[in-house]
């Protein structure tokens, strides 16, 4: 297990290094002049532009800029104009000259709560539905469930979100309109505010999981070791949960690991639909103000989060499937 984790962490570090390097290149080298973008539309003064160049460190070679940036994230740094930027330093926003890290650390709990809550919802609903379908294979329930899955696979968060708010929050009053979670001061209210967004977000994902789970379970039930277990006299339910589900779980977790990136994307759309203030909202607003350092910070932060979560998923995978451990 330890060796497995070490290898995965080393791999993740390489991937993160490449992602940050490429992102940095794309954001600060590709635009003809980030300083022009930094000082906005009325920037014609040459002195001002070169002052901004110096302030952003753009008069240095690229690798030096990148190195400074990465060092800043871990140890903090002094910007070329003497401004101090404390330890996770992602630079200063173009839009309002604020340090960027507090902006992100303000916002990410919303996105993470959505992603975790949404994943929990679609894993429970999707896997549950798939298992029931496999259990009831060929019966009415199976057919109804597969039609629902097909429909669920074809709706969009930005369509059913407003409909769900209008129905469940405005008309029936069963659920709260979505709002930003504040876990420390109001945990119950935060939970209430997340139920509807998480459920809506889960719809586009669980259909896939129920289909996959169904076919995996059906496949597992046809395996020899299942037949042996049944022949030895074990109960069909026991075999279903302890043998077949465990066999299917490894594949489900693999699919989940692949989906992590889209879960994050789904969280962004959900935020916009429910008017929540998470990282997606931050990134979209930064588009309008052409705030490159902020965009890049959100990008690097989220990519790192996804890579780290992927390691966690892989570790879970190794725990469930003993064949993986030695690989």
């Amino acid at each position, binding site marked *: 297990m330890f060796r497995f984790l070490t290898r995965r962490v080393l791999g993740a570090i390489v991937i993160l290094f490449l*992602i940050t390097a490429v992102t940095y290149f794309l954001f600060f080298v590709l635009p003809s002049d980030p300083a022009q973008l930094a000082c906005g539309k009325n920037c014609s003064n040459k002195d001002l532009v070169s002052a901004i160049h110096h302030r952003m460190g753009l008069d240095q070679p690229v690798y030096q800029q990148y190195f400074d940036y990465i060092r800043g994230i871990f140890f903090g740094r002094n910007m070329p104009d003497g401004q101090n930027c404390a330890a996770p330093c992602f630079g200063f926003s173009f839009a309002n000259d604020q340090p960027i890290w507090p902006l992100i650390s303000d916002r990410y709990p919303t996105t993470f709560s959505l992603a975790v809550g949404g994943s929990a919802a679609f894993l429970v609903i999707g896997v549950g539905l798939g298992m029931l379908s496999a259990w009831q294979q060929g019966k009415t329930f199976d057919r109804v469930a597969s039609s629902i899955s097909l429909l669920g696979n074809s709706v969009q968060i930005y369509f059913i979100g*407003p409909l769900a708010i209008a129905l469940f929050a405005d008309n029936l009053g069963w659920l709260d309109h979505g709002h930003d979670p504040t876990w420390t001061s109001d945990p119950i209210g935060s939970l209430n505010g997340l139920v509807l967004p998480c459920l809506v977000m889960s719809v586009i994902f669980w259909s896939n999981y129920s289909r996959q789970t169904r076919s995996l379970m059906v496949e597992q039930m046809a395996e020899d070791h299942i037949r042996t277990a049944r022949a030895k006299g074990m109960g069909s339910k026991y075999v279903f949960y302890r043998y077949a589900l465990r066999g299917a779980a490894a594949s489900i977790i693999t699919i989940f690991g692949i989906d992590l990136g889209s879960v994050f994307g789904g969280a962004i759309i959900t935020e916009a639909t429910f008017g929540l203030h998470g990282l*997606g909202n931050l990134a979209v607003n930064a588009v309008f103000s*052409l705030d490159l350092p902020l965009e890049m910070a959100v990008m690097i932060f*989220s990519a790192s989060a996804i890579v780290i979560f992927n390691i966690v998923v892989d570790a879970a995978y190794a725990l469930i499937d003993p064949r993986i451990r030695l690989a």
Partner: protein
Amino acid sequence: MTSPSQASADGGSLTLEPEGIPGTPGGKGTPDLAGRTPRQLAWLRFKRDKTGIACAIVVAGFLIVAVLAPLIVKLYGQNAYDLYGQDDGLLNSYGLPIAPNGGISSTHWFGIEPQLGRDVFALLLYGIRNSLGIAAVVTIVSIVTGVLFGLVQGYLGGKTDYFMGRFSDFMLSFPSQLFYIAFSPVAISLFVGVGDQESWWVRPFVLIALQFLLGWMSIGRLVRAQVLSLREREFVEAARISGASSWRIIRKELLPNLWSTILVQSTLMLPVFVTAEAGLSFLGVGMLPPTPDWGLMFQTGATFYSNDITFMFFPGIAMVIFVVAFNLLGDSVRDALDPKTLR
């Protein structure tokens, strides 16, 4: 049983068949035993699939609407840019349609848009046209790139395979939705100088380029996996021994075996790109108003859902039908082309 007279009349091909196969149509005197190409077989299987045919008709309907939108809207009599709500006084002071059900009437079949007061039917047709057009270009470019990438990767193998594989893994590790959002200002600033007016083609082009950039890897992987097994097969070996060049083997031996994958993947990828494009426009970083766009209609709908929910249904249900039809069609095409895979 094939009667000798028929066999001789039909030429040598039939006599090669082993005699006495039970149930061959040859016994009834129909010369149907003559070989069918795999394409004909697939078409026969597809024709028997009722869901597939229905979905194909729906999909064709959407494509026709997208191509003929200007003509249909002209026949319909309204257009997608006139602000009927303001010109004809159909909106109240809050910008909502006065008439019930979102202002549905005999002149405005699907009602009028809140706030700007454009005709929803015309808007939807043009929105479908624009979103589908962008997605179609992304799909074609991604498929071509992915297939070429996978072919080269799988066929050359070895170190090339390894490095190209790591490259596509790396591209896959970017969070795509966020990448589109975060990178769009940079991409736009490449084409538009500070303070300049943006040309009409910049947005669609940037949308296409960004989605393509992170969109080709999945098909590339599929093609690679198939090529890896195909290139060990006897017919490829035979071609190699007879002195065919790599390019000829890729073109004449490998590519024809990949058509089913390519076709199925394109029908499955197109709706994904359509919804992704609509999602970006919905977030406000794709197409911009007043361009008619599927995603922008959801943006308007999400703003006004509490007062004018009718408006939301037209783009929403159209999109659900569109995605369902494409997904089912993709499944049917797969079943028709490859009867071995049972779902």
